[in-house]
């Protein structure tokens, strides 16, 4: 695998620093990269920044992203987009401290002390130093404003001093690595064109697209504590999407996604064509499917849908980083698992680990991995839940006053600060059932409730991919709309249905899951860097591996919104002429 080959070129050295953990391995760098030297020199100047009456820098970091990206999109056999870009972003962060209080984790009206800007792609140390000089200057000034606001906020609260977050201890690491270099996207132009042509054979599919995104990057972190960490990252993604409307106007969509650690590991063109046919045929079938009726009863989430449910109900609740002040104290903002160590949060059959050091599961690539987190801390495998009991949350260096140390899960977006976040979240069930056994159990539960059928959900919407309008619940962190859903009759009859909104599923419902699958499905996505749960969009590669989940009781209801009319104009015949003539 190319990623491992690159890591093999790197060498690792752990140093001891004030407050840092013990060194791990030793070695000597042959030559420090020029970018590292430039950033280190500017950080050494920046730690001396001062303003009258204001606290001094306590922690300074600069992160340089060298990004090679390609984005190709095709529709109906024609290229719509073919962008290639090489860019560099420099992000600086400053934490000032006085007494026991520092400026971390406070989102008031003052501008953030985390600042990012596009900088020169040339290897020009002076240009890099100038950019770092200005950004660190702004970071420091903003940090002092944030500190003052945090202190004022704390002074206005009875329990402020006990609750405020601070920067916890960290280790120091030095590790250099080369950039993965430009991505080779040329051959994917014809692949995107050929795969997208599949949809021309389906006149009932209104819109379709095939997107291929390749990224190779090198992240360089330099801190005032002495860390100098470079880590390459390569990611290749394919998104195949189609959309249409039913005759009653209901919007329908389906998608297929593939992710890999390199372009070479992506599926073959034939596999992508088969996936395109599958989603096209499913959307056509959905047009003819009956609308789901209001439903209350057992729901089985299989395949991607199970992992998508766990993204919302579990993964987004695992951060050990407290929500940023001044929202602290609002019960709605508190993570569901805060202060619940050793509580049973899932049935005893479940184990959950988060392992950033793992790169694949049963041959399926896991995209959330890293050797060092975005705070230059060594990645660690963390047991999150053992036999249903919560063991550990996922932490970076920002923690509450009584909190834990980093366990190597400080993850940040390219332009935001690090928070504790999941990387490769692996959920497994002891004595998991086969698909057949699970569906039988669904029918049995439905029958016991006097229902004619139980609901099986295979896929939830992925709004970033399908560009579907988000339902209000999804927008505020609820579950996305079901895209592919079936009624499983008590008599065994299986029928595709469309429409419906999942209601009333919360994190605590995970305690009542009655059965789970044997197989795990890997779901890779770009998580939001927002400090608020459920933020849309995002740039943090993340994977969840999950078994099918059978919930004993969930509500699915028809959405209240009216649909747009189907097209008045007839579709031009020539759209499908070419395919039919072949």
């Amino acid at each position, binding site marked *: 695998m190319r990623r491992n080959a690159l890591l093999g070129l790197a060498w690792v050295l752990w140093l001891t620093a004030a407050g840092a953990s013990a060194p791990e391995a030793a070695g000597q760098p042959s030559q420090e990269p020029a970018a590292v030297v430039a950033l280190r020199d500017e950080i050494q100047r920046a730690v001396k920044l*001062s303003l009258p009456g204001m606290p001094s820098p306590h922690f300074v970091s600069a992160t340089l992203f060298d990004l090679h990206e390609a984005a190709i999109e095709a529709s109906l*056999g*024609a290229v719509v987009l073919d962008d290639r870009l090489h860019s560099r972003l420099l992000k600086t962060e400053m934490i000032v401290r006085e007494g026991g209080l520092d400026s971390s984790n406070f989102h008031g009206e003052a501008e953030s002390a985390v600042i990012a800007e596009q900088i020169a*792609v040339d290897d020009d140390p*002076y240009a890099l130093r100038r950019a770092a000089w200005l950004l660190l200057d702004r970071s420091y000034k903003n940090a002092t404003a944030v500190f003052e606001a945090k202190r004022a906020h704390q002074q206005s609260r009875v329990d402020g001093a006990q609750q405020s977050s601070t920067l916890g201890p960290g280790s120091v690491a030095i590790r250099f690595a080369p950039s993965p270099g430009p991505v080779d996207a040329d051959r994917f132009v014809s692949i995107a064109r050929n795969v997208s042509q599949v949809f021309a054979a389906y006149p009932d599919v209104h819109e379709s697209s095939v997107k291929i995104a390749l990224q190779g990057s090198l992240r360089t972190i330099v801190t005032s504590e002495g860390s100098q960490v470079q880590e390459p990252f390569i990611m290749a993604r394919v998104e195949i999407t189609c959309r249409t409307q039913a005759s009653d106007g209901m919007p329908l969509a389906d998608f297929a996604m593939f992710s890999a650690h390199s372009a070479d590991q992506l599926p073959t063109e034939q596999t992508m064509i088969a996936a395109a046919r599958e989603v096209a045929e499913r959307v056509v079938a959905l047009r003819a499917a009956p609308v789901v009726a209001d439903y209350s009863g057992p729901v089985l989430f299989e395949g991607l849908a199970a992992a998508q449910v766990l993204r919302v109900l579990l993964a987004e609740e695992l951060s050990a980083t407290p929500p940023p002040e001044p929202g602290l104290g609002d019960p709605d903002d508190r993570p569901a698992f805060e202060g619940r160590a050793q509580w049973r949060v899932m049935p005893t059959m479940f184990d959950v680990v988060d392992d950033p050091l793992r790169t694949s599961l049963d041959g399926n690539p896991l995209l959330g991995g890293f050797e060092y987190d975005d705070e230059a801390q060594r990645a660690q495998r963390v047991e999150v839940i053992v036999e249903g009991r919560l063991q550990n949350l996922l932490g970076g260096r920002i923690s509450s006053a009584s909190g834990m140390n980093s366990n190597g899960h400080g993850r940040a977006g390219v332009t935001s600060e690090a928070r504790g976040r999941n990387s490769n979240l692996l959920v497994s069930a002891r004595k998991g059932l086969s698909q057949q056994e699970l569906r039988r159990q669904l029918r049995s539960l439905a029958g016991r409730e006097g229902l004619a059928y139980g609901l099986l959900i295979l896929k939830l919407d992925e709004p970033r991919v399908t560009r579907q309008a988000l339902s209000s619940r999804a927008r505020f962190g609820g579950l996305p709309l079901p895209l592919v859903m079936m009624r499983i009759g008590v008599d065994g009859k299986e029928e595709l249905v469309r429409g419906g909104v999942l209601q009333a599923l919360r994190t605590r419902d995970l305690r009542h899951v009655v059965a789970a699958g044997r197989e795990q499905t890997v779901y890779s996505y770009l998580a939001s860097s927002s400090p608020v749960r459920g933020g849309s969009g995002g740039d943090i590669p993340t994977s969840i591996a999950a078994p099918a989940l059978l919930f004993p009781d969930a509500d699915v209801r028809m959405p209240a919104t009216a649909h747009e009319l189907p097209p008045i104009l007839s579709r031009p015949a020539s759209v499908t002429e070419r395919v039919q003539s072949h």
Partner: protein
Amino acid sequence: MRAGGHLRSARICYAPSAPMPSRSTHCLSAALAMSCLMAACATTISTGAPTKPAPSLPTIAKQLQLHRPSPAPASQSAPLLALLESDVQRAMAELTVRADPPPHHLAYEATELHAFILRAADGALVESKQVRRRLLDVDVRVGTPALDDTHPRLEARYFLGSAELPLEDEPGALRNALWLHTDAAYKAARADLTKVQSELRVGIASDSDVADFSPQRPSRFIQSPARVVLDGPRWEERIKTLSAIFRDRPHIEQSFVRLEVSGATRAFATSDGSALQTARVHARIAVGAAATAGDGSALTRGDEFDAHTVEGLPAQDVIAARMRQLADELDSLVRAPVAAPYTGPAILEGRAAAVFFHEIFGHRVEGHRQKGDAEGQTFADRVGQPVMDDIFDVYDDPTIASVNGRDLNGHYLFDSEGAPAARAQLIEDGIFRGFLMSRSPIRGFDQSNGHGRRQPGYRAVARQGALVVDPEWVTSREALNAALLAEVRRQKKPYGLRIGEVTGGYTTTQRGDPQAFVVRPVMVYKIHADGREELVRGVNLEGTPLTVLAGVIAAANDFQVFNGYCEAESGQVPVSAVSPSLLLRQIELSREETAGQLPPILPPPVFEVAR
């Protein structure tokens, strides 16, 4: 201020170039705008008929050469245009039968953009990219030409959104996009018509006796597609070398040199038979530098070099010399005192005067602003009346490609509604004559003069293209300077002003807002009675249009071109303004906002050490 695609308050900004990264802004906040405009209301300037200029000024031969090219039609076919032509007829025929109410007009516009963008700072390359996009705009007008969905109403919709078209001429993919977006555009227009009818019924909508759409004789013209090629490595080196000029100035914090070379090929077909393919190549080098004064004021200096071809851009040494001049000026600005509010006579130098006319006059004579109760309609009742001294002609003529050898950014052949670009005579011998017209008629003016313009994604409205201030006679610059000093003495002022450069501005045209403008001068000199010049900073130039126009009393023979991008309801469009230096009897300066940001605490890294 824009919200949800509607222009709630017509604040129209004029910006010469892309803003400086993270430091400068070209639009003031609404709160600040209000405070500035209240200051303008306090002035007391005569608004009577224009008075004659000082009679003693000598006249000299005017140097104003306008170049209007005659582009050759293409010899090759235009496959995308042919597809648009056939599909616009097919869709119109089908909608006429199946849609209720049917549309009365349908237009397709595909804009193919191919751009090279290079940016450097501090001697290093920041960005080097190519952009290729094909955007589709579908204009559907539902109802009748007398009353359709575009009728003026309270929450008119200007942002419609473009669709991305395939970059390749694959008929099936293109037709699928046309089909979906025509259908969506029709439904949106039909919903708008329902709102118009509802507002008419309850008496909110206005101008019910003026038609909404004027007929236009179909045009057919096919130009060869725009082709742009760039020697990337050579230009990367050029702009890196240029950007190092700013790096070596200690007072400059941030800076950039940016090259953009773009080719836009526009295919346009309408249900009434127009079929156009036009091509525009634009090359621009923009340079900019920013510094912070001791009081926290953010200071910028920049310039742009525009041409219709890459080869038409100035030579490296010309740009380098200008950059050194800008760096010197920025250094002077950092040390310059902050000016106090002032009213008195001033010379607006050519480019500043051009932007000034764009703001105070050009936006107010856009046809659609004379329509609907929401607009201030400053000039609606002024047709045939004197508004300036009788030596002045002002017109907007997008057919002019260059003036005195300088290429105009606002040059085009056909507007966004398919009307041929034409000269719009706005002021003749000081008398106000007419408006910039799109295909939206107003009282007394029922035909387009080719000024219906838009950025892809927006609905076209009347906009400026190439505005020219053209006095009947001009004097020398020396004579104009002497006339300023004479005016200073006559008004018993301690000094007059010379406004050398402006960075942009905005104007408010809607009722309920002050009918005022704000222009941001950057190089402002006090001209003392003894002829001594003193650079000052930190002021805005503001006022009300009728008063200021009446106070323009003389012009020099130094016509200059300002090329920029103008932002209004129909998005950002390239524009030019041409003017000689002008003597104004009275202008008003007010204090500008200050960023309040301290200069960098540490000195910049030392270049030699860092190397």
